[in-house]
């Protein structure tokens, strides 16, 4: 029983990371039709930004609020990079989706290589608050606290995004734009502003995932983002390509399947079953799990 609980919570923690990465991907894809390969790089930037801040910024560090401060810095850098990427590289290629994908491919290679050039390719130990390493007993299982941190953050982000999408005018524009971009412009709305916003917010979530992934794994390396990105893509597709709630459900599904199969079958089987899951879902329901945005 306790193993089961530990696996479930750990799977949910993994799901939280997937959700943070995939939610931005799916909003970007839904609204702009862009498959953003640079998203993994945003994650890497967030992770290294947090790490750098904890090492170098006065007041930032690995305990309590000083860690929060470091994370805020990392997320801010990730957000800024994402917004600049949209404004400078994606926007000029408006509606030219293949070229936009190609540009994000080039960026993903270049940005990760740049991080590797600056900080090397070896993993770096990541600063993490001591309490994340302690455990809390839950239903007889000793669950490391970082799992709760991951899940709580993801739930918070999910709720915030849903409230934003459902109650604000920009949220309305985004929901409508996911459904039919050109009709939104035909109502006199400059949908490109929403593009920049979605890119920046997606970048922020990815950067946050980078920082939390650092806490979870204890170390960061430049290639981390790319490997997470592939599973995030799978989550996005299973979740229906452009739906936040669908993405959340798919993230939970993928996280749990992966965790349990890796434990009960053999290491690696979990990853394989996720791919199998993707094939099954796509063949049974080519539209993914859900069809609604929020």
């Amino acid at each position, binding site marked *: 029983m306790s193993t089961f609980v530990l696996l479930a919570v750990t799977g949910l923690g993994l799901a939280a990371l997937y959700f943070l990465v995939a939610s931005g991907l799916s909003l970007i894809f839904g609204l702009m039709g862009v498959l953003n390969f640079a998203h993994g790089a945003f994650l890497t930037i967030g992770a290294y930004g947090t790490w750098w801040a904890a090492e170098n910024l006065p007041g930032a560090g690995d305990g309590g609020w000083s860690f929060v401060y470091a994370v805020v810095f990392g997320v801010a850098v990730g957000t800024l990079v994402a917004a600049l990427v949209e404004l400078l590289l994606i926007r000029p290629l408006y509606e030219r989706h293949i070229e936009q994908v190609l540009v994000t491919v080039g960026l993903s290679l270049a940005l990760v290589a740049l991080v590797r050039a600056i900080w090397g390719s070896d993993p770096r130990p990541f600063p993490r608050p001591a309490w994340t390493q302690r455990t809390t007993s839950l239903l007889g299982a000793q669950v490391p606290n970082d799992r709760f941190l991951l899940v709580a953050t993801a739930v918070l982000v999910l709720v915030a995004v849903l409230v934003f999408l459902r109650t604000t*005018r920009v949220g*309305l*524009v985004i*929901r*409508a734009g996911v*459904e*039919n971009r*050109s*009709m*939104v*412009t*035909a*109502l*006199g*709305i*400059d*949908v490109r502003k929403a593009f920049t916003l979605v890119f920046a917010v997606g970048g922020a979530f990815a950067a946050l995932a980078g920082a939390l992934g650092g806490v979870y794994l204890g170390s960061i390396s430049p290639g981390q983002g790319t490997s997470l990105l592939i599973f995030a893509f799978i989550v996005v597709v299973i979740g229906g390509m452009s739906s936040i709630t669908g993405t959340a459900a798919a993230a939970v599904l993928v996280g749990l399947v992966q965790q349990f199969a890796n434990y009960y079958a053999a290491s690696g089987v979990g990853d394989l079953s996720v791919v199998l899951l993707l094939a099954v879902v796509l063949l049974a329901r080519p539209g993914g799990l859900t069809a*609604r*945005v929020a």
Partner: protein
Amino acid sequence: MSGATAAGRGDVLLRMSDVHVRLSGSHILQGVDLAVRQGGVTALLGRNGAGKTTTVKAALGLVPSTGLVELTGADGRVHRLSGRRTHEVVRLGVGYAPEDREVFGGLTVAENLALAERRGSAHHHDRVFELFPELRTRGRQLAGTLSGGQQQMVAIARLLLNDNRLLLVDEPTKGLAPLLVAEVAEVLARAAEEVTILLVEQNLTVVRRLATDAVVVDQGRVAWSGSAPDLLADADRTRELLGVAPSGGHAA
């Protein structure tokens, strides 16, 4: 407002000159020339696939085009629409109801209307709800669950919500039951008292009822333009241009 002479009835409100559209390798509009006079209803006619929808989209900048599109502003100034982004064109006072209504099925009726509220324009909810009281009562219903006729009401409500100078309405009666066709025609007739309309319409009874002018496109070019009653009075020519004869009857 400057002292420029305001455009009066009969002046050209929208002009398209030598407009070409190419999409995925096909040359779809091959030099469209047309003018929409201020204050009337200009019917844009033609067989299926002639290029009517594409003409409207080109005016809005929804498809890439070459050539010149101009709109006369409220102050009499001529705005060049070519090269502008769609939302900029719309903000000059151009309303658009697309061929397949394109209401946002995942949003509620109220959200659809809220989204259509344009910056820099008054929002005439009263006018809309007076014409379509149903939209008030169904405010919380998802637009995707509405009937075709109700969706068309939402689409037209989006047009009438803002102050517009020109409405581009693409086949508003397509697929509607006869009673609804008459209702839509009635609403457009009332709207036409205040605003200029470019109306794509296959139903010649509706055209007869509303249109003052007519432009016929064929294979991406304007094949005929002139007064709508003249066109409809000439059964042979109508059959030649549109492939259908105008019925003798009057609008319902």
